[in-house]
């Protein structure tokens, strides 16, 4: 249980920070796509007989880079849809090769917070540190290119490379979060809290902090409720993400 709280909190912190940029850049589809595509990795890992995290760590950067490189020439949404589908298809194939219990597949898709081990917490902590460090280093160019792409370009920021780096960052977060919240719902954590936070506060740093706070509350609540009800954690995360967003829209509308 302690492990679950620790892992969940780490996930919430990273998702809150990275999610802020996801919403700012309008990269929701990619944020949804990378974790989904990584499902193939988790399924593949069970074919080979290694821990799912290894599969995730291999496949999510591959998916991120494929989306980034193929999507460079127009219609990036089409490319994202196709890469995701191709990876999921691969996942379906791997699944048909294993004698995995349905409950384990289910856990991959919708999360299983109570199965987190101590080693995984340490791994998560290391990845969280790396991701936060990356955001801190890239903060200025990332913010500039998200808000004003042309200006960033003119100032010498290499936006294409930055975009790719950002996708890889998303892949790191995915590897971290999927074992806890599952492939299908991890993106709600990257979209719901930041979208809500942006409606509450204006300045980027404050919004990021608010986003982390909201994500933490969401995850803690979801873990507690999942523990109490034995219902899947993904359910609570998904519903809470939407609730925050609705609340934020209401607040924003009343202020106007």
């Amino acid at each position, binding site marked *: 249980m302690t492990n679950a709280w620790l892992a969940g909190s780490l996930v919430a912190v990273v998702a809150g920070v990275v999610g802020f940029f996801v919403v700012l850049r309008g990269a929701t589809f990619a944020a949804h796509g990378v974790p989904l595509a990584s499902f193939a990795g988790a399924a593949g890992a069970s074919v080979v007989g290694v821990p799912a995290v290894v599969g995730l760590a291999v496949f999510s950067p591959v998916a991120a880079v494929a989306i980034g490189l193929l999507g460079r020439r127009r219609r990036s949404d089409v490319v994202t849809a196709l890469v995701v589908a191709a990876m999921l298809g691969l996942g379906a194939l791997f699944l048909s090769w294993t004698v995995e219990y349905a409950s384990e597949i289910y856990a991959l898709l919708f999360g299983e917070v109570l199965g987190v081990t101590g080693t995984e917490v340490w791994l998560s902590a290391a990845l969280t540190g790396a991701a936060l460090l990356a955001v801190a280093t890239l903060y200025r160019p990332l913010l500039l290119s998200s808000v004003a792409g042309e200006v960033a370009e003119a100032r010498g920021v290499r936006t294409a490379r930055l975009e790719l780096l950002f996708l890889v960052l998303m892949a790191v977060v995915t590897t971290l979060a999927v074992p806890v919240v599952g492939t299908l719902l991890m993106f709600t954590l990257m979209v*719901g809290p930041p979208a809500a936070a942006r409606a509450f506060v204006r300045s980027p740093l404050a919004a990021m902090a608010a986003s982390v706070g909201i994500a933490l509350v969401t995850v803690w609540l979801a873990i507690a409720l999942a523990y109490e009800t034995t219902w899947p954690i993904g359910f609570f995360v998904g519903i809470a993400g939407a609730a925050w967003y609705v609340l934020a829209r209401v607040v924003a509308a009343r202020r106007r």
Partner: protein
Amino acid sequence: MTGFLASDPVRVALVVGAMAAVVSGVVGVFTVVRGQSFAGHAFGDLGTLGGSGAFLLNVNPLWGFVSVGAVVAGAMELVGVQRRRGRDVATGIVLGAALGAAALLLYLDTTRSSTTGAAVTVLFGSIFAVASGSLPVMAGLAGAGVLAVVALYRPLLLSSFHPELASVRGVPVRAVTLGFLVLMGVTVSLTSMVVGTILSPALLVGPAACALRLSRRPGVAMVLAAGIGLVVTWAGIALAYASATWPPSHAGWPVSFFVVALVFLAYLGVEAGAAARG
């Protein structure tokens, strides 16, 4: 080969696959042109909610797919899919809430009936298990989908490329948008029967994206997309049938894998060809 065509599930699968491929091709062209791939993808995921609900109530999954598709189309219109900016976030939020609910329903499916396959069937499809009784309904939906596109062709085209011009000309843009979303929902429901909910967008977007690379004219692209879709679906079914003896499991590889892999290869091929031509 004679064994292939003599098998009843295979014949049903071929018919279902053909219907899904044709509607997807026609609707898919507009999906790509309008830049609504994410919405198309979301419909697929959301179908999971309908499919798992239908499993729980023990009714034909098709009804679950279709009803949820229609409801969600309305929800997406309400939260503002018509604006490009913020649209993705709104789509994502609706998608997240519905997926959460689907997670719960699938969980209840698994615990209640202890038939563990529900999640996999809903998500990854089971075309060989389509009951031949649902064929007329599916044919009706497919026919209605194609007819709707034909009827709405002009206003759809105009509102896709020049929304301002369309509204000046008296086209009810919001109504057209909503109509198109419903259409997309129905289409994805049909494809969900073939390749499952989370893979259905591939069939919607893939062939259409290929076709739009090959021809600039929407009408021609629709025919091409339907053709490409048909080829990949049938080839996928045939390969899945042939794979029954393949290693490692000797239980056959999934149809959805073959269909999606072929779609992806087709897209890469067309892209490479277009790049070579310059």
